[in-house]
């Protein structure tokens, strides 16, 4: 299959997936106990007030009608307004996306060279000292959950040593206004993806270096350095690309734990707030954004894998 045809087919499937996700999320949100009116009423659940709120928020209409309206608006590019604040959902998404995208981009920028580089180094001498040290570190680090690592780093570097700001409080989402606040969240976000990607690169390289075509190239006298970079690496990177896609996806969804500990007002926080408030249009908007991101990132990864090792891509 040609690359453009493959891409077109996958894009079409992706669009269907986004609508599917939106539908499932709508059904699930509706299935949650209580609605925005109940949440707004809080501990003053006067039934008449709840009824009035429900009427005001247009929650009286059947769920399927509200869903179809929302879908029609979506088709024309309108994500609607928040049930609670009446501000446009698009604004909420943009505000939440800025810090999330920044963190994701910075993480990836460090992650790829770091993990691929160290993975390749470890693969040079399988079982060597460097390999064993890297493996031990990677497995150990991978075992630490994000929130534990985050709290630990804050306690040590933020509070005790006071080398770095413990939270991003006060930046208002503009993390670049004080780049130091990025340091600790970046370390946490890097930790586990670094482990899995460096391990994958290492394994891929070792396997590729044993492959027939590399052995053939070696017999032809291709220098070792060229052998690794040109002949082995592309094959080793196909699984890495797909793992990287999963990581990117995870980062772009807003890593809630990291956002909560460091007070980064990103997409994860926005989603938690919206679900708590039963703000259905905002929940829907966020889920569509996340679904589109997921589909796009995975499509890109598959296309890269397709390019790197066509047989793998075609089989997928």
């Amino acid at each position, binding site marked *: 299959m040609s690359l453009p045809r493959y891409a077109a087919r996958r894009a079409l499937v992706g669009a269907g997936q986004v609508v599917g996700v939106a539908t499932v999320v709508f059904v699930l949100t509706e299935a949650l106990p209580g609605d925005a009116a109940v949440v707004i009423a809080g501990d003053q659940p006067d039934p008449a*007030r709840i009824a*009035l709120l429900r009427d005001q928020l247009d929650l009286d209409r059947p769920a399927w009608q509200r869903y179809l309206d929302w879908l029609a608006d979506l088709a024309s590019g309108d994500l609607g307004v928040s049930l609670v604040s009446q501000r446009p959902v698009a604004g909420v998404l943009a505000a939440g996306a800025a810090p999330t995208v920044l963190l994701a981009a910075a993480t990836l920028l460090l992650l790829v060279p770091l993990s691929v580089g160290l993975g390749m180094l470890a693969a040079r001498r399988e079982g060597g000292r460097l390999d064993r040290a890297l493996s031990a570190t990677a497995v150990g680090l991978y075992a630490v959950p994000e929130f534990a690592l985050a709290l630990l780093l804050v306690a040590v570097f933020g509070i005790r040593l006071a080398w770095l700001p413990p*939270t991003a409080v006060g930046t208002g989402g503009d993390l670049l206004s004080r780049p130091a606040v990025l340091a600790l969240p970046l370390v946490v976000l890097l930790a586990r993806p670094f482990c899995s990607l460096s391990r994958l690169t290492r394994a891929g390289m070792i396997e590729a270096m044993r492959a027939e075509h590399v052995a053939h190239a070696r017999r032809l006298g291709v220098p070792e350095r060229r052998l690794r970079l040109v002949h082995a690496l592309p094959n080793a990177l196909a699984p890495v690309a797909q793992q990287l896609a999963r990581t990117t996806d995870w980062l772009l969804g807003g890593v809630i734990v990291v956002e909560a500990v460091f007070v980064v007002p990103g997409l994860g926080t926005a989603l*938690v707030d919206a679900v708590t408030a039963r703000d259905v249009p905002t929940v829907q908007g966020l889920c569509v954004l996340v679904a589109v991101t997921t589909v796009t990132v995975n499509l890109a990864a598959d296309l890269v894998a397709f390019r790197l090792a066509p047989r793998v891509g075609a089989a997928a």
Partner: protein
Amino acid sequence: MTSVIPMPAARLTRRGLLGGAAAAASATLLAGCGDSPTGTASDRPRRGGRLRAVFAGGGAQETLDPHLANLFNEASRAKAMFDKLADYGPDVSIRPRLASGWEPDAGLTRWRITLREATFHDGRPVRAADVLYSYARITDPKRAFRARASLELIDLRGSRAVDDRTVELALRRPFAEFPNVLAAFGAYVVPEGADAFDRPVGSGPFAFGAFQPGRSLLLKRYADHWDGAPHLDELEYLVANEESARINALLGGQADYAHDVTPTTARTYAGDARVRITRMANSTMQALAMKVDRPPFDNRDLREAMFLLTERQQLVDTVLSGAGQVGNDLFGKGYQHYADDIAQRVPDLDRARFLVERAGARGLRIPLDTAPVASGFVETASVFAEQARQVGLTVEARSGNKDTYWKDILTGGVLACYRSGAMPIETHISQRLLSTSTTNATRWRRPDFDALYARAVSSTDEQTRRQAYGDMQRVLHAEGGFLVWGFADFLVATSPRVGGVSAAAPANTLDWARFDKVWLG
């Protein structure tokens, strides 16, 4: 009008370390600084600076409409930018604010209110018309503002502006406690015609600067405030939903004031020079709500057995980590009209067992509704279950959905964890304990009790009112549905640079989360 009600996202914690005596101790804390070394607040107010206060927030859903204020940070912001005609003092009695005074007619149905000379941030004077407009907006039948239930008593069509600084409010029925209404939660005065609050204009001590919903709000000193201009030049509200993040921001020098911290935090940093804890005693009533209209708690003996089996000090020590005081099955300890002449109930397990036996309830399984909707609820349920076991009752904790908890327990179940912030005792009764109350979680409906209430609020005689409040509380103490086991302190952490934070302000009262009397350095 109720307590400041955090939406479920907001972490609610008002506990502390040392119990009752701590409040008095912290009250003197700020005054005791003496010659201040660098970095510690002086005991005299200082002008200038920007105070950064970090609160739990409501995300992108936050609003600056003072009539919609719901969360702690929204309540505090509303207080900074707007004024009410009256507000709650430290004992939850009513203090005049924008109103300089009020005078009812002999029938208690027409109240003449005199306004202070005050101006909005844009320079316009605060007039009677602004008051009438604000109250009309709040009570608009098509909208659902929180204060509407309290203000509905006002007949706006019969009310009028006598002149710019005098407003005459007509009531639908005689009501001696009308000033309570003027101080109702969310009853703020906004300029006539104001309906959008993207850039709010109020008459409060701070004027609007910049707003990012769920992130920050910057306010600026309003030099012409009628109650004296603030000491601070700027006040910045920041948001951190996790309590640990709030205290970390304070420790890291990213904030000067962290609202609502846990007793564990207070204990951890007790000896830390970077943190100062202020305790506001009597802030939150902690209770169990028994539904008196259905089995098993329609049985008076069983209710009394519940009162007597409760080891209150143990609940205070465990659930509140000692940061609070025991309750006496009555709301409003330390507030105006509180019946402190009623003896404190102490555990009497023998009598409790006898009453359980007499009610035929031995071995009875009683579901206790709880949810992680307020701090300590889940712990309360497990500690109480243990206590009930000793008299032969099997109380089983049943954890519900935190987002819908209050609605669920209003009508469902038989026994539920309950709490309330500060409000006048009259308000507590009218909202929760009358046949007509819309949030009557104990289903307490007694015509004779309603009559006592009616006598209290329709009498011009202070002695008659006091007597009626006392009688009502005696009935509730003897056989009511609220088992009030304690009152929790509300805890706030500040940097030592911050001065003037009042400790004598239960949550929801005027001086709580108030910044115009606070200074830096």
